[in-house]
């Protein structure tokens, strides 16, 4: 009798912060069950497999690849393509791979401006010659190379097709375990095609214990301007809680410590743009449209309320910028949104 071959698992990261790996680790001793159930063929910190090994694998050799991190450089892109070729099922794991996450706010600026902020105009700099990182530098001993820094942050499925998406910044550990456990137990996954798994199909509000009273508001508050009443909906108290336009699955953790949902699980099913969805949701809570109000009154009230909302782009698209209509318009105008600059950026 032959021993049944274990499915092969790979975990990789591109441009990311490491939180996804910590979240995987935070499944605790269940990580031992993962080790038991899978043959880990690529998780460089836990195993000694190397990139050359991955290149040497036959195409489709890896049964399941969890890929976290966004695509910011040509290296990230080449690695995404390599993992795509070698993997049967590729998962965009976490907000960066799913939707660009917070670093995709970079798509509101340029690589050249980023270089300026980091290397030129900064209170602790000593750079009188205006030195910028260069892709190739000649030093006395030879040439030194560093990769090109792209103008635009892209989500993984904007570079390669992915079967599934596990949302969250980072995905909550119980959800990670639920996905892995399902795979281990051979539960049939939904039809592939950037399909969301490991999350709810309803908004964060549905799992939030804070009470809603269909209360309307006249203005928004910044988090330090009010101390919210415990147990009550934050949005109805004027805090721009994104829960109403955000996929659930996290367990509504942030509102339970009195902080608004920031939207890290991304947009809801059937929604094209998280920010646009949020704007229409907000229209229903601002205190406009009382009986007897003229259309003009209502517009004024909405405008007055919106005046109190600072940084809509960075609020509504904090995690979803790379997938937003806004980004796609920019990216569509010149390929992937890159432009030549003076340093090592592209």
């Amino acid at each position, binding site marked *: 009798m032959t021993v049944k071959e274990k499915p092969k698992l790979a975990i990789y990261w591109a441009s990311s912060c490491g939180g996804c790996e910590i979240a995987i680790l935070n499944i605790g001793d269940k990580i031992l069950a993962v080790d038991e159930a899978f043959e880990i063929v690529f998780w460089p*910190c836990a195993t000694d497999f190397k990139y050359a090994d991955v*290149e040497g694998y036959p195409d489709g050799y890896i049964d399941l690849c969890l890929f976290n991190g966004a695509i910011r450089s040509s290296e990230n892109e*080449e690695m995404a393509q390599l993992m795509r070729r070698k993997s049967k099922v590729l998962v965009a794991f976490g907000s960066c791979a799913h939707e660009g996450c917070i670093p995709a706010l970079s798509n509101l600026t340029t690589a050249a401006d980023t270089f300026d902020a980091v290397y030129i105009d900064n209170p602790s700099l000593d750079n009188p010659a205006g030195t910028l990182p260069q892709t190739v530098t000649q030093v006395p001993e030879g040439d030194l190379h560093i990769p090109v820094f792209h103008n635009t942050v892209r989500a993984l499925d904007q570079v390669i097709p992915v079967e599934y998406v596990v949302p969250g910044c980072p995905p909550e550990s119980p959800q990670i375990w639920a996905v892995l456990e399902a795979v281990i137990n051979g539960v049939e996954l939904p039809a592939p095609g950037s399909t969301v798994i490991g999350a709810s199909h309803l908004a964060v509000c549905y799992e939030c214990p804070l009470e809603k009273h269909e209360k309307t508001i006249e203005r928004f508050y910044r988090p*330090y301007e009010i101390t919210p009443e415990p147990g009550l909906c934050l949005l109805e108290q004027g805090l721009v809680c994104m829960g109403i336009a955000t996929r659930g699955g996290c367990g509504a953790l942030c509102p339970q410590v009195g902080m608004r949902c920031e939207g890290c699980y991304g947009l809801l099913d059937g929604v094209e743009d998280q920010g646009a969805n949020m704007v229409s949701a907000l229209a229903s809570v601002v205190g406009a449209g009382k009986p007897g109000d003229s259309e003009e009154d209502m517009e004024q009230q909405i405008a007055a309320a919106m005046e109190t909302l600072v940084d809509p782009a960075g609020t509504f698209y904090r995690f979803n910028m790379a997938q937003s209509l806004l980004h796609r318009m920019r990216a569509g105008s010149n390929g992937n949104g890159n432009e030549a600059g003076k340093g090592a950026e592209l």
Partner: protein
Amino acid sequence: MKRITIDPITRLEGHGKIEIFLDDAGDVANAYFQVPELRGFERFCVGRPAEEMPRITNRICGVCPEAHHMAATKALDNLFQVEPPVVTKKIREMFYSAFYVTDHTTHFYALGGPDFVVGPDAPPAERNILGVVRKVGVDIGKQVIDTRMRNHHVIKMVGGRSVHPVAGLPGGWSKAISEEERREIEVIANQNIEFALFSLKIFEDIVLGNPEYMELVLSDAYTDRTYSMGMVDAQNRVNFYDGMIRVVDPEGQEFVKYHPRDYAQHIAEHVEPWTYLKFPYLKNVGWKGFVDGKDSGVYFATPLSRLNAADGMATPRAQEAYEKMYETLGGKKINGRYQPVHQRLATHWARLIELLYAAERMMELITDPEITDPNVRAPVTATPTEGIGCVEAPRGTLTHHYQTDERGILTKVNLVVGTTNNYAPMSMSIKKAASALIKRGTVISNGLLNRVEMAFRSYDPCLSCATHSLPGQMPLEVVIYDAERQEVERLSQYTSQCGT
């Protein structure tokens, strides 16, 4: 002539790179440690409301989001000119101590420790957490997992989430601690103290009890005599959450003690075109290149440098462990304080002393009668203009500096991040170890190259914060080429991440 290059295995990897150049005789001519990633927080945060920074900048690093969250929160206190209630400072520091316990545990057992526990010449496949578990037993592996889990539980309970916490506010913290929660955390703090004492015992048994390892620790290959930086309290004892920044010179004399708000008068950052990371140095000494000594502005900021810069530890058992380390490795006192230890491998020992301090401090704070005071927010009234916040991140002094318009919308952001402080000394340590270990005619073995890697692994480097892996590890694979660029050897090394 033979040229050795330590290079990532392919261009695809791109998370870090070391190039070592040999001269015609076959000795090391120079070494370059390149950081090939940039994520650009200093630019894209401009235009954001300042109060969001604790929840934006924790995405710099998923391994130490608590450090960025805390530096940002303190920068907001300063920006909005609001003094948090006493209880709030205690909650923040207690939370931060729990984070230190989990972070230092991760480094010792998964990153730095394997070199000693499993051995510097062990095969790379064994030099990891699994190898440590095989060597010291599954029970200890479970204890490591339990320690991480229970402290992440505290982080989630008090900060909202176990990764990327959310509770920091200018002058406040969004969550008070109930008596029930307090009791639960007290049990955890007690377990942490036991675990820290146990970890120190392991270190003493394995390293101090082994003359070969002690020779390694004390060898010149791993010694760099730079300035030491660390945050100190009013009695010049180590503190992670708040205090003044003290710098001592290579002989142990205080060079400067400054308020974190004055950082730009004391720290400057040098730029090289062959890397994305900057090189901070002591402005009032000056940038003299990659050299150590009193005339070079290069400093380091690690567990070892913090102990060097302080006069001692603020908790009793950590103080005992501190004295034991200095008595063992140096023992000379000048003006009543120990001379600095410059043997970089002693950083692992210093890290465990800090682990014990963090556990004891957590216990002190959670048993403070005031800790359950529900009034955790001070009202914010001032018009913001500029704010600076500073904490000791596990990998070095972390400074956030914000400028805003009158509405508190960010106009300028500067971040001097933990590992970045150590970029120059790490580069020097790599060169020094390589020069000492790679000589003409040397057979380059995997173990030998691992010993080169050990030079920088002691810093627990956290490169661009875009690079990392499991418990904060990043595989940096190394290929050695001969003069014809034919591959002759390869190995992998592990680092963690935490930068911008």
